[in-house]
């Protein structure tokens, strides 16, 4: 309470005088991005729940669909799980791709973003860093869901090693797909709006797909929709990979949508980001 004021005045003066001089060369874009990625990982460390949030729904669906509908849909719960799990992996990672946008919007609504923007460093650093951290997030949430599936009895025909190419493909898909949500995040005011709008996109995309059931019994018009749904294309490619029979054409088709999305929403995101706020 009665701490003398003077020392703090001296400390402030000393802090400035002892500060290293302004760097002749500001840090490189790569090191800036890595630093921001490190920051995003620290946030996961402090709030691991943000990682669990995105895997809870897929896990719930896996358990519910397998035990409730599995027998009826595929003859046995075991057979259904073999069908369902690759699709659930895709669903998990697609859901997770919202998080770059969500965290970006959260950041911008806080004062810390002003500080970042007032630094003499490569300005898209925070976005690049968030995407790097997403690779960790996608991989971690994919692995969590895969482990739960394995515990329930899922066995990939292609062996456990097939998980690696599957995760790579899903990462590539999600990194492209995520640009929709970064653009969205920079266009709306609050993080919760990002979430609400994202669900409006994600729900039809994941349900009107081949994740849960074989589209063969759907009406023709719906089959047409499902067959061009980018999520279905990715699920097909992932099923092939997990079955030990990767198909180059399916992988190419799966990557088509994320490439298109990145080509449109990537520049849009950067434009929105650079636009004065």
């Amino acid at each position, binding site marked *: *309470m009665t701490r003398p*004021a*003077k020392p*703090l*005045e*001296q*400390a*402030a*003066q*000393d*802090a*400035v*005088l*002892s*500060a*290293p*001089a*302004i*760097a002749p*060369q*500001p*840090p490189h874009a790569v*090191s*800036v991005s890595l*630093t921001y990625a*490190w*920051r995003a990982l*620290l*946030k996961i460390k*402090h*709030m691991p729940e943000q990682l669990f949030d995105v895997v809870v729904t897929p896990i719930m669906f896996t358990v519910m669909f397998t035990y409730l509908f599995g027998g009826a849909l595929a003859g046995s719960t075991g057979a259904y799980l073999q069908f369902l799990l690759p699709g659930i992996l895709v669903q998990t990672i697609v859901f997770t791709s919202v998080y770059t946008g969500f965290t970006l919007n959260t950041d911008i609504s*806080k*004062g*810390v973003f*002003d*500080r*970042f*923007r*007032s*630094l*003499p*460093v490569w300005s898209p*650093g925070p976005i690049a860093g968030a995407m790097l951290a997403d690779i960790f997030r996608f991989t971690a949430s994919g692995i969590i869901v895969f482990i739960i599936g394995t515990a329930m009895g899922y066995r990939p025909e292609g062996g456990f090693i097939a998980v690696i190419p599957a995760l790579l493909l899903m990462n590539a898909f999600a990194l492209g797909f995520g640009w929709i949500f970064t653009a969205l995040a920079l266009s709306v005011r609050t993080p919760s709006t990002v979430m609400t709008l994202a669900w409006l996109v994600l729900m039809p995309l994941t349900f009107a797909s081949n994740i849960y059931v074989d589209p063969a019994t759907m009406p023709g018009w719906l089959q047409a929709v499902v067959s061009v749904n980018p999520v279905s294309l990715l699920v097909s490619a992932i099923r092939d990979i997990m079955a030990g029979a990767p198909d180059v054409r399916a992988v190419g088709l799966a990557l088509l949508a994320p490439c298109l999305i990145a080509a449109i929403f990537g520049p849009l995101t950067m434009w929105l980001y650079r636009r*004065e*706020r």
Partner: protein
Amino acid sequence: MTTPAIETSGLSRRFGDKRAVDGIDLDVRRGEIFAVLGPNGAGKTTLVRMLATLLRPSGGSARVLGHDIEREAREVRRKISLTGQFASVDEDLTGYENLLLLSRLSGLKGAEAKDRAASLLTAFDLAEAAGKQAKDYSGGMRRKLDISASLIRRPELLFLDEPTTGLDPRSRNQVWDMVRGLAASGTTILLTTQYLEEADQLAGEIAVVDHGRIIARGTSAELKAKVGGGVLQISLASAQRREEAASLLSDMLVGEVRADGHGTGLSVDVSDPDAGLAALGALSAAGITLTGYSLSQPSLDEVFFALTGRPPEPEDTPETEAVQ
């Protein structure tokens, strides 16, 4: 190094129809503490955000440390630090992680970055809280962290946007001490405040801003002089002669005579100290006995009232000026 720290000419910023900053001409000398004083929504934050290259002006121009804020934004950013109005630290990270992050973004590497983060925490008495998330910090601790985050490199110019809004008096005094220390080290400081006392305490020069314009500018003493000589307050020995005293004062002085105290007090604005003295003499000559009198300088509150015709906002209202 003879260029001023800040030079602006007709600097303006509009948001839709609203002129947040409406033609501001400023020149801030190097090494001084300059205060931008104004109520909520006066345009202070918008002004700072433009000068810190976060917002593009819609009119006019500005040079910060000799660099144009639009064409040479990067040069400006290399030399300034900004402590924003809302705590500009990452609340999810610990104090140490915050400083380490900014050290790395400032180009410090490895052990150098860690040392800098640790030494700043120690200097500002935050070492014990180094491992706590910033959201668990008190307002005062957060402000100290925030300011230390601006000192990783030596800034030539530091922007402090409402550095003490919402702080308790003790924390406010600590921030003031820090600001004085920074100024002693030669750093130019531009601070915004809605606390009149703060500008008076810290700043060499003050610009009073209202509705996006500078309505007065000068040292604290100059601003006070603009408004008049001050206030003469007297206490009468007896309430019975108050009427007589009041009419005598209103004859001699131009200001309106106000009754205060418990029936024995009177106060009146005076244009200069001599006029006040003459009025006291007249009271004495009329045989009206006083138990006390004072001739005070007007407070900055009174300055503001005189300049704008309305009182400043209550001091405990946090600034809600639009950031967008």
